[in-house]
């Protein structure tokens, strides 16, 4: 029974890994550089695995979620800076995900986009309000598994497997190194999006994880994100096999779904759209709650999905307000895919302030006792801190120099 539950959790994690940022960056990277950037996805996936495991462990042993750690390690002033920047990025991501939901609904139904935005917003509120939370995770996680159609598509497109294999070896074969670097930073940012750890660690606290759950935490992080990374590979391979050298920039979610339609026909298209719909809706819910978690944790308010709304009133009002704000922004007609690129790049800048406090708490024996970071976690943790610093410093300059990946 226990193994069954673990398996269910892992399935949900796979479906939950891919969001609109991963879809856009993986397929565009494939369309622009073929299979060359596959190695970057490996680095990103290992990074999110390391830090998720650490956040989960901190949550299980000390009961501290990410923004509890941020506040107590860097204080009110710097913590407020971290809060504001993470909230801005979160809201951008949320807006992009909701736009993505509306686009999927439009492709599936043919109804007008703006109506569907409102419908998507209303549907999200209803689902979140009436559905028990373990079910939300499962429904959207399993629905997201339809994205596995891209793995089938990747095989059916018969990519040159030698070139695919070579993609896992870091190399650069291009006339435009800046664009290559921009995509590398984008792929890392998309894989290590901070809302994933906000949501994961808060969930651990909510489910009252203790030291006995540390095994589950490790398995969840390694297998869940590992297989999520597998989906990213599939997306990039499809992008490379189908769009490279065609002059097609997958600037629309519909183009991405085309990646499954070309080799598999109507059924491929349908599965791809349903998969994208569930994955992006799930990510919208995750980002929505992450915003409310962060604010509540920073200010010490009561929070939690498992407390009913009346148990955590300010937390509830926060996510309702965030949803209304995001809907307002989508309704202005901003392009969700374009917004995704900005959200991923800006989130790269917010990464250090999220991950440094976690690394500090994970090393504090007072709170972590015998579960303090071991050598492997620390070597990887520090290594990734360096990677994160480099992307944080280069993300915005690269975005400007490459005109948001356009040249």
């Amino acid at each position, binding site marked *: 029974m226990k193994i069954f539950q673990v398996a269910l959790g892992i399935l949900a994690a796979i479906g939950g890994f891919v969001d609109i940022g991963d879809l856009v960056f993986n397929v565009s990277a494939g369309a622009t550089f073929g299979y060359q950037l596959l190695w970057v996805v490996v680095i990103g996936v290992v990074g999110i695995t390391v830090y998720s495991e650490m956040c989960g462990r901190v949550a299980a042993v*000390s*009961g*501290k979620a990410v923004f*509890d750690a941020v*506040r*107590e390690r860097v*204080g*009110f*002033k710097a*913590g*407020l800076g971290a809060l504001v920047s993470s909230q801005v990025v979160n809201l951008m991501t949320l807006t992009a995900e909701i736009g993505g939901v509306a686009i999927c609904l439009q492709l599936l139904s043919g109804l007008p986009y703006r109506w569907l935005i409102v419908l998507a917003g209303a549907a999200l509120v209803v689902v979140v*309000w*009436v559905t028990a939370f373990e079910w939300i995770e499962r429904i959207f996680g399993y629905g997201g598994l339809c994205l596995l159609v891209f793995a089938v598509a990747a095989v059916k497109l018969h990519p040159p497997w030698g070139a695919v294999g070579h993609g896992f070896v870091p190399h650069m074969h291009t006339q435009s190194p800046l664009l290559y670097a921009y995509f590398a930073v984008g792929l890392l940012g998309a894989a290590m999006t901070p809302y994933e750890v906000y949501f994961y660690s808060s969930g651990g606290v909510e489910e009252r994880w203790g030291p006995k759950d540390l095994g589950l935490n490790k398995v969840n992080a390694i297998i869940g994100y590992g297989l999520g990374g597998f989906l990213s590979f599939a997306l990039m391979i499809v992008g490379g096999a189908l769009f490279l050298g065609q002059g097609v920039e997958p600037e629309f979610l519909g183009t991405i779904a085309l990646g499954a339609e070309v080799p598999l026909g109507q059924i491929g298209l349908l599965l791809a759209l349903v998969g994208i719909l569930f994955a992006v809706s799930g990510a919208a819910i995750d980002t929505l709650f992450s915003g409310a978690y962060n604010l*509540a944790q*920073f*200010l*010490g*308010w*009561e*929070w939690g999905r498992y407390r*009913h*709304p*009346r148990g*955590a*009133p*300010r937390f*509830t*009002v926060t996510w309702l307000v965030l949803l209304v704000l995001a809907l307002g922004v989508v309704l202005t007609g901003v392009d969700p895919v374009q917004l995704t690129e900005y959200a991923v790049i800006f989130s790269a800048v917010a990464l250090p302030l999220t991950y440094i406090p976690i690394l500090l708490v994970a090393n504090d024996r*007072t*709170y972590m006792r015998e579960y303090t970071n071991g050598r492997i976690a620390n070597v990887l943790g520090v290594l990734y801190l360096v990677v994160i610093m480099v992307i944080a410093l280069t993300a915005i300059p690269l975005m400007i120099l490459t005109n948001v990946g356009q040249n």
Partner: protein
Amino acid sequence: MSRSIDLGLNVLDHQLLDAEERRCGKVDDLALEGGPGEQLELVAILAGPGVWRTRAGLVGRLASWLGGGGRTRIPWEEVAHVGSHVSLRKRAQELGLGRGDDRMRPYIEKIPGADR
């Protein structure tokens, strides 16, 4: 053996939990009493938006104004335990904490399904 703690690291900015484990604010500041030549004692915890103004310059003052500027003083005698969080002996209401959530609750309760 006496237990030694660093007030800035182990108390300041930590989560406050009331007697029923309800989250009811952060340790926003500490009140110390005593001067050179005397004993320097931690006498109270200060919590609430009114305290933020002293902690982050202009931004802190803005945050404090947005938060309504209230502040609560909790005598150290009300602290039950200092661990990962700071646990209090009484309920939040008795200490004047968590009032923001209490004020908001009646509105949330009007929405069907809020106490599911």
